[in-house]
């Protein structure tokens, strides 16, 4: 339903862009033949034609205007009177989902490098469920901070270990879910920002490799790009990829927060010839990945599979999962201990995680939210004395410094985000990622809509975003009196009784 509406909007915009110059001509003729007064309209539409030309063809900073022209201007007009409309008529600044306006505005500002100081007071709730960070009475100065460094694979002594110097990484989003220009913008931006990008489970990472940023190759349950006919791993193909310079690490995806217990889903609207080829799948139906890896039938074979991939690639190898039962996770950890095989990192994806497409019930109801899941995982690893055998990454709406700090306090070593970077690229949360009709050209393969993205103009926004996140993180660390994220602990959090983290306070 929503999809239909948006296609119509796009058609409407095309129609308008054509109608404006035609009307200008018609009014000109009317002014010539009927009455000179018609030229008031001629002039108006002539001016509109010129402005429209500028929006569509000349400027590169606004995707909406590039795609929709003056009709897209409606969005900016509404935005400028939005606060009033919203305050009196619609939702308020902290109500929209999944990201409310306050959160989105913060990302947009960071991406556009605009100062994000705000005045008078917070829009958040203070007496109920919001977790807060405890600062120190003795903040340290920023030059006392220890520069961030995290080396994946050091625990196993991997020859090709990989070090990041900023605690942010672009989380998995496949080419397929994303269009070509979005992939290129992310990749070019990641390179500018000096952070790695996860390829997502989209098969052979053609455009990612083109751009030459550091890559984490993700192997989904269908193993697109490295599969045999029967869905098992093709070692040769994996090794060939692992030998590429840009590919620094490999992530085995077991599950993701938006659809835990279910395989990936790519709607047939979004399958082009090229994507069918890169993934090795047919074109005419939805591609549904199996819900688990063919090799992983139980806990024992799962751990053995991790070992196999580590040996085959000679790269740091991590796993990504959304936690369902902490007990089950503990069994996995015990088995890792027994076999003495540990992934180089574990990505904990919260149930609030995003996706290109997933069944609604899974998006809404399945999986543990990030904070309690992350805390459980960290506690289980610590309890079994293996926390120092691997790194812990977190994802799930960690788009702004506040929640990122909470994740660090809960044990995360670095932050993964998908939607934070999409917002930086100009995502307006139109929620049409699965329909191939994304109005700003991110999650679509329609070349007309993708035209909205000018890669050179957008890539710096990724870098700005990372830079500003880093800046805020440093300030927060200093205020907490910590020299690095490693020094942050659960005690740095103020947890109100309504919070999902409250039970952990009591058990501690």
């Amino acid at each position: 339903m929503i999809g239909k509406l948006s296609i119509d909007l796009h058609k409407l915009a095309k129609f308008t862009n054509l109608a404006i110059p035609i009307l200008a001509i018609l009014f000109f003729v009317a002014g010539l033949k009927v009455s000179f007064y018609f030229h008031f309209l001629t002039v108006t539409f002539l001016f509109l034609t010129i402005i429209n030309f500028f929006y569509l063809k000349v400027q590169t900073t606004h995707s909406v205007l590039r795609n929709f022209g003056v009709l897209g201007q409606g969005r900016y007009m509404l935005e400028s009177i939005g606060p009033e409309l919203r305050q009196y008529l619609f939702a308020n600044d902290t109500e929209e989902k999944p990201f409310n306006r306050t959160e989105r505005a913060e990302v947009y500002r960071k991406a556009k490098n605009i100062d994000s100081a705000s005045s008078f007071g917070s829009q958040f709730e203070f007496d109920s469920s919001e977790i807060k960070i405890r600062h120190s009475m003795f903040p340290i100065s920023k030059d006392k901070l220890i520069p961030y460094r995290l080396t994946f694979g050091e625990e196993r002594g991997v020859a090709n270990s990989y070090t990041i110097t900023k605690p942010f990484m672009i989380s998995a989003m496949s080419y397929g879910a994303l269009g070509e220009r979005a992939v290129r913008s992310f990749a070019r931006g990641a390179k500018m920002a000096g952070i790695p990008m996860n390829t997502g489970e989209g098969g052979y990472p053609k455009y990612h490799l083109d751009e030459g940023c550091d890559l984490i190759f993700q192997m989904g349950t269908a193993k697109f790009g490295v599969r045999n006919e029967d869905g098992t791993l093709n070692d040769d193909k994996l090794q060939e990829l692992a030998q590429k310079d840009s590919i620094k690490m490999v992530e085995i995806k077991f599950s993701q927060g938006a659809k835990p217990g279910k395989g990936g889903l790519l709607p047939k609207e979004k399958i082009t010839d090229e994507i069918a080829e890169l993934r090795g799948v047919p074109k005419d139906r939805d591609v549904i990945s199996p819900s688990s890896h063919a090799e992983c039938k139980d806990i024992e074979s799962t751990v053995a599979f991790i070992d196999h991939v580590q040996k085959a690639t000679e790269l740091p190898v991590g796993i990504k999962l959304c936690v369902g039962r902490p007990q089950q996770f503990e069994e996995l950890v015990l088995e890792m201990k027994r076999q003495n095989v540990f992934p180089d990192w574990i990505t904990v994806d919260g149930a609030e995680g995003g996706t290109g497409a997933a069944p609604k019930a899974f998006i809404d109801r399945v999986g543990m939210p990030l904070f309690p899941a992350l805390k459980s995982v960290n506690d289980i690893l610590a309890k079994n004395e293996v926390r120092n055998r691997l790194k812990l990454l977190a994802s799930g709406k960690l788009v702004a410094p506040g929640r990122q700090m909470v994740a660090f306090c809960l044990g995360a070593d670095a932050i993964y985000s998908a939607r934070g970077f999409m917002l930086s690229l100009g995502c307006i949360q139109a929620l049409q990622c699965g329909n191939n009709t994304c109005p700003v050209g991110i999650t679509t393969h329609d070349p007309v809509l993708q035209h909205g993205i000018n890669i050179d103009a957008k890539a710096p926004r990724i870098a700005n975003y990372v830079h500003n996140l880093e800046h805020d993180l440093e300030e927060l660390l200093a205020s907490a009196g910590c020299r690095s994220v490693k020094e942050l602990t659960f005690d740095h959090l103020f947890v109100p009784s309504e919070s999902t983290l409250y039970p952990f306070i009591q058990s501690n």
Partner: protein
Amino acid sequence: MKNKAYIFSWIAQLIAVVIMGQTLFFKFTGHPETIAIFEEKLNMPGGQYVIGIAELIACILLLIPTSVAYGALLGAGLMTGAIIGHITHIGWEGNHLTLGIMAIITLVSCISVLIIRRSELPFIKSALKEQ
């Protein structure tokens, strides 16, 4: 740099105001030649008052610092109309040539003002915001 641009803008504004302003006298006093143009050539009897009032508003807006851009927009629109009039109805002979050239000069001035002050226009402002 910015200051220079604003000085240039004010010069252009004054040119536009002077040119439009002096024709108002002829329009509002019903000078026979003006009436001839509006009634015979353009077939808009009384049009000199409509256009005259619009030009007066444009002149005033062009002189008030907070509304210069709006005045320039209105002026540019009116002058585009005038030039269309010259092309299609009035022609460029004799005195009409002078009037036509005046209109073109005013249009150029108004457009210069618009370009210099583009960030003062509503809506376009938000669209132009670099980065």
